[in-house]
């Protein structure tokens, strides 16, 4: 009898305690498919980012993570909790992407990922985040297939190559009146993908493709493929790739017989670096950008970036602004679903966060208005084309 009563007492105590403590944990956590992330007081809410921080593409990773840091700084404090960016090196390879993803999933205080940056690692990391309920917002993974896989967690502020290619082809054909187009790409998933799309769209419009060449990244002399293209006498040259190679191509166009041919670059070639490094040779070259021409937010971002890092945004890579705009909506979503528990801890229901990120609507970023479509395409702004005139980027006539 005595043991019985002791046991009953113990049971009551346990139940009461459970009731008390569970009163601190918000109810949504038990209903949420992925549970809640619990952030202890005096610790930070972490946002992960995977990108190439070493190797030949290190400039992309470093630049975009720096842009994201500005967003973190702008976010300030939320209910007494600060945000933190955990940027890790995925080396730009699928292996690295999966490794970083597994590590992020292990850290329970990482609630969202602004990444990854390259399409290959993003593809490898997606299923891992999907299983753990961590939303993604990629700044620069532009491969078309990524949003066609039915993922609930993947979103991106980067623009699909398909859309950019369509606009570029139309601009070339209708606005600039080009009928003979040559294309060069840099053998990356990004560059070759977009060049292929432009080729298809241009031919569909009725234009003729007179040359399609591929170059390898990291070299310094592309005169041979340019000479070959020159022999076919194109009116314009479309380049799918990044600033580095684009600059070399533009600088070598004159000596390879492509004088007078219009250079048209994708959004990977836009930026102040392109201007300074092509100098006089760059007059008349076109490029694409999705960043707002000018706005208050952009000016403020530019100033903050330059002050913190000593170089202007867009110098290391053209995606600096995307770094900001991939992290800020995540922060916004976190702020909207996080609940402060009775015990002072912050509870972030993961499933609700995934949905909230997917439902981002009309967020005013530095690259434009961010609204996510049902499949995770969050950028609906149209590309703006720019042309170099007088040593400056000037918006090309529409």
């Amino acid at each position: 009898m005595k043991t019985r009563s002791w046991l009953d007492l113990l049971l009551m105590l346990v139940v009461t305690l459970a009731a008390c403590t569970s009163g601190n944990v918000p109810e949504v956590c038990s209903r949420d498919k992925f549970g809640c992330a619990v952030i202890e007081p005096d610790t930070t809410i972490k946002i992960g980012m995977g990108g190439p921080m070493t190797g030949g593409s290190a400039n992309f990773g470093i630049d975009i993570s720096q842009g994201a840091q500005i967003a973190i700084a702008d976010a300030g404090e939320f209910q007494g909790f600060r945000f933190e960016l955990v940027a890790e090196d995925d080396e730009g390879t699928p292996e690295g992407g999966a490794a970083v993803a597994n590590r992020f999933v292990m850290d329970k205080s990482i609630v969202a990922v602004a990444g990854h940056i390259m399409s290959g690692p993003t593809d490898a990391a997606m299923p891992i985040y999907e299983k753990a309920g961590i939303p993604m917002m990629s700044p620069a993974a532009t491969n078309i297939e990524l949003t066609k896989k039915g993922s609930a967690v993947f979103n991106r502020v980067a623009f699909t190559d398909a859309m950019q290619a369509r606009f570029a082809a139309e601009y070339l054909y209708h606005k600039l009146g080009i009928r003979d187009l040559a294309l060069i790409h840099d053998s990356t998933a990004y560059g070759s993908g977009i060049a292929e799309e432009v080729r298809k769209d241009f031919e569909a419009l009725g234009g003729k493709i007179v040359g399609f060449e591929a170059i390898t990244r990291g070299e310094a002399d592309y005169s041979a493929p340019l000479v070959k293209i020159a022999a076919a006498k194109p009116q314009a040259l479309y380049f799918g790739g990044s600033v580095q190679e684009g600059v070399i191509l533009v600088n070598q166009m004159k000596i390879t017989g492509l004088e007078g041919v219009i250079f048209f670059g994708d959004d990977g070639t836009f930026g102040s670096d392109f201007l300074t490094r092509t100098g006089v040779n760059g007059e008349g070259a076109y490029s694409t950008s999705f960043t707002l021409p000018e706005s208050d937010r952009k000016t403020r971002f530019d100033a903050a970036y330059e002050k913190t890092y000593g170089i202007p945004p867009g110098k290391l890579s053209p995606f600096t602004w995307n770094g900001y705009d991939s992290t800020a909506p995540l922060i916004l979503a976190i702020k909207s679903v996080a609940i402060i528990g009775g015990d002072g801890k912050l509870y972030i229901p993961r499933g609700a966060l995934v949905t909230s990120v997917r439902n981002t609507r009309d967020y005013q970023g530095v690259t434009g208005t961010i609204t996510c479509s049902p499949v995770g395409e969050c950028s609906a702004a149209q590309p703006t084309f720019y042309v170099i005139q007088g040593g400056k980027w000037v918006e090309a006539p529409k």
Partner: protein
Amino acid sequence: MTHAQLHPAFRTGVIFGVVVIFLMLIGFATTAAQLLGALLGNMTFPLVNLLFLLGLVGLWGGAMGVRSAEAAISAPQAAPAAKTDTANAALVCGLMTGGMTGLLVAGLVFVVSILHARGANIRACLYALSPETIQLLSLGLPPAAAALAHLGLQLLSGIAGALLGRAVSLRGDHWQRRLSASRQLVRRRLASSASQPKIAHVWANRRLRRPLLCCSGLALVLLLPLVLGQYWNYNLGTIGIYVVLGLGLNVVVGLAGLLDLGYVAFFAIGAYTMALLTAPEPHHLQWSFWIALPIAVCLAALTGVLLGIPVLRLRGDYLAIVTLGFGEIIGILSRSDMLAPFSGGPLGVRGIAGPTLLGRTFSSQRDFLYLIVLSVLLTIFVTSRLRNSRVGRAWLAMADDETVSRAMGLNTLKYKLLAFGIGAAFAGLGGALFAARNQFTGPEDQTLMVSINVLALIIVGGTGSVPGIIIGALVLKGLPEMLRPLENYRLLAFGALLVVMIIWKPTGLWPPAKRRLESREVAEAFSDAEITTTEDKLKQ
């Protein structure tokens, strides 16, 4: 104070100074200070941490200075009296070392601070020197004061280090003698006594030691995946795949003595074969993993043999470059437009199938880890059987001296081809497992760094020994995962490690038993055993 004593101290000081300057210029000094702060929990005082670290470096420098001075003067003579047995001598050594380090560091800090104060954009030249870093390095003081502070810090810690070094070396000799005496005593006790506990007997008995280690290792490896989480299972899986690759390359480099720098080519062939046979795009062949795996392995082996036929007659260095070129060719081809319809081009191949067992797909890292462990065991089995067979002995003979083995009638070309083919087969196995696990493969996975990683693995771990290769894989693949905060410096450390290991311990961290036998036991045999002549043996 002789010049012979001062010169090494001077040189040590200069070396330490240059290294510290280099570390400061790449931003490592600030990262280390922050790391220390994170460890100790005082993130808000990086300055203190930096001073602490610099002081430690100075201490070490001072100690090394004194030791090199001693080494310089005591080299021909062994008399302990030749050491710096006056505190003054040690003091001067420390002063010299610390002074040199201090001068160099102070000079750098002075120049950088002055330029920064004048408004020069140092970051345009030296990327790591942001204003905050410069502020930290100059200790928050004006340029002249900062320089003097650094100089003073280095001098003081140098002197302290020198005194410490002298103390250790004076007592160290004494401790060394006592340690070796006690070690000998224990050894004699163990050897002579009959009534020892069973465990000690078993341990002392070398023949039983290996199976014991193997069994316990096996048990660990089979039970661990059940306990570890997804992340660690993934990492262990990567390490396992690299062990397979390492064992394969070991057959080529360690056993047959052929330097292959294009190992990634066979890895790529294995990965792409698995990918193209099981993925829905681009060929719509969706064969099962278990069918594709042996095909991948065989195809890789075949490629190895085909590559070997023209190439294996070349000499060591040339072979290395040619295989490097072949690896690059495969990388270029996988990225090319020409082969894009066949291999997916730069976009790679996605949707690679995983293995299914009894209807259940391998979906978690744990299942994959078991599969990888199985492959590792298989590889170990095959390579050790090979090594102890006629083929293995032929390889050893070839690696030692090719002319002689050819003179003895060995068909070196056949054995070289065999080695190449088998190495390629294991690379194909590793590649196929890799692709199946990531469910995605592309040209970015087939880079030169993979070949270099595998080569470094077997060099660091120990060419030719299985536990060595496992250790090498743990060090080169597992350690960077654990040291994530320092990951910007990962490749730098990798390069330095490679150079250091090859100079300091060319046979690796765990050399194969045969070589250890040669070096240590032979020395022992000649030192304290009696040499029995053949005649004596015959008489017994």
